[in-house]
């Protein structure tokens, strides 16, 4: 038993592109406690609802986070539509599903790159980001933006995708599958990757449930929970099974995300084959009055929106509980007992999104 040392980690750190600060309490090389402190990215977005009209707030909601941008816009729109009881056209629901799954693919591929960078394989970082570019091209072709989609609005979506583009997109994604096979093959089968991931940062099923973990972190611990089961957008008409793994270590989280990539491509193919014709938006009149909770499954897990409106053009209270925020207790739990050199690994496997946490 050595004496305790405190090592500060961040906010500017080569491994984390985002500012997160951790005070790590070490005994020799083993971590006994981790104290996160946040607030470097805090902007106070939730208070902006009193300054922007409810229809313009969609653009702010999309900029809560640049990685899950479409999901935030979608969640806000769905919450307002729920309050105003707007029937969104069928085609718009399917288009939303397609964009949501595209953003999941791009987010997971990005995570693969960052994780590879964290455990020191820059080669894999480059390869996964190269694959990600082809997904970003599809996103840009259909929605107009690379990371900020700007495709969702209250009452539907802002632009349609033509049938030819949809067919093209499916072919491109099929081709992408072949490349992904090779990439995920390295992540799941390579010996040196296995050394860095297997048995590190274990989160048991009980701990995960007790600490309120969500998303791939929870599913890697063997709990079958996926908010897409709620059947928002077009998910009730698509068939899928949540991906689960039982080990709960870094490797299991990697495997969950690898299998979710294929699941997303499959869901897009299903949505394209079932796509109905028709309008993509409805006219929205009046202002919302009431309150509601809305939950979605983001690439990082369950997200919850709370909107309370009082019948004016400005919403009274908007609250978003993001997946990374509720994964902080699990992250601290995983860090305890790790080696100091595994810290970036463990932090990255929960897929932290700091601008989501602090809004």
């Amino acid at each position, binding site marked *: 038993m050595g004496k305790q040392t405190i090592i500060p980690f961040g906010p500017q750190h080569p491994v984390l592109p985002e500012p997160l600060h951790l005070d790590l309490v070490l005994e020799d090389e083993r971590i006994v406690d981790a104290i996160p*402190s*946040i*607030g470097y990215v*805090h902007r*106070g977005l*939730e*208070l902006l609802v009193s300054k922007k009209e409810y229809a313009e707030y969609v653009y702010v909601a999309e900029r809560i986070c640049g990685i899950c941008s479409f999901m935030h816009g979608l969640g806000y729109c*769905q919450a307002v539509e*729920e309050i105003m009881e707007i029937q*969104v056209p069928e085609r718009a629901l399917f288009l939303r599903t397609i964009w949501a799954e595209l953003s999941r693919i791009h987010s997971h591929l990005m995570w693969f790159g960052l994780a590879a960078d964290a455990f020191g394989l820059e080669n894999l970082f480059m390869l996964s980001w190269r694959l990600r570019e082809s997904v970003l091209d599809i996103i840009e072709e259909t929605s107009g933006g690379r990371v900020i989609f700007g495709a969702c609005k209250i009452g539907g979506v802002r632009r349609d995708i033509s049938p030819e583009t949809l067919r093209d997109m499916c072919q491109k994604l099929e081709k992408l599958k072949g490349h992904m096979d090779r990439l995920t093959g390295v992540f799941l089968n390579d010996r040196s990757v296995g050394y860095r991931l297997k048995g590190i940062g274990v989160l048991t099923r009980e701990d995960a*449930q*007790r*600490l*309120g973990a969500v998303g791939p972190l929870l599913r890697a611990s063997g709990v079958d929970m996926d*908010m897409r*089961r*709620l*059947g*928002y957008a077009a998910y009730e008409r698509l068939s899928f099974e949540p991906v689960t793994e039982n080990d709960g270590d870094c490797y299991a989280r990697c495997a969950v995300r690898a299998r979710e990539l294929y699941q997303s491509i499959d869901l897009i193919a299903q949505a394209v084959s079932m796509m109905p014709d028709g309008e993509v938006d409805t006219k929205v009149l009046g202002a919302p009055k009431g*309150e*509601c*909770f*809305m*939950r979605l499954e983001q690439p990082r897990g*369950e997200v*919850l929106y*709370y909107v*309370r409106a009082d019948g004016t053009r400005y919403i*009274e*209270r908007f*609250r978003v*509980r993001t997946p990374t*925020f*509720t994964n*902080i*207790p*699990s992250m601290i739990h995983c860090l305890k007992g790790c080696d100091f050199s595994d810290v970036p690994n463990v932090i990255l496997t929960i897929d932290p999104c700091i601008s989501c946490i*602090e809004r």
Partner: protein
Amino acid sequence: MAMEKRIEIFILTVDELVSRTRSLHDEGYRLVQICCSKVDESGKAVLELDYTFDKHYNLYNIRISIEEGAEIPSISEIFGSAFVYENEIHDLYGVSIQGISIDYRGNFYKTAMPHPFTQD
């Protein structure tokens, strides 16, 4: 459309909070979030705390209303993940919460002004 058509909220007093939370925990509920919002009730500012729980994709909401600067008990002994929300509410709204398992004492969020969400 999604399942949560109309939200049900059970309004409780501050004293009932801990016992109800404990019984929910024993029934297998999971804490989803704690949300605080500032509302005007007949000219007086009141803080409403919404505790959201989930079991099998069904939400269960508890709401307590308190006055600004009031003290409430913590539920982080029952749900281990509650401490992040409670620290957040303490920093942004200035509600003092007694007995948080990991208490940052106002250092969780560092903002330009104290308790920004209570200011008009």
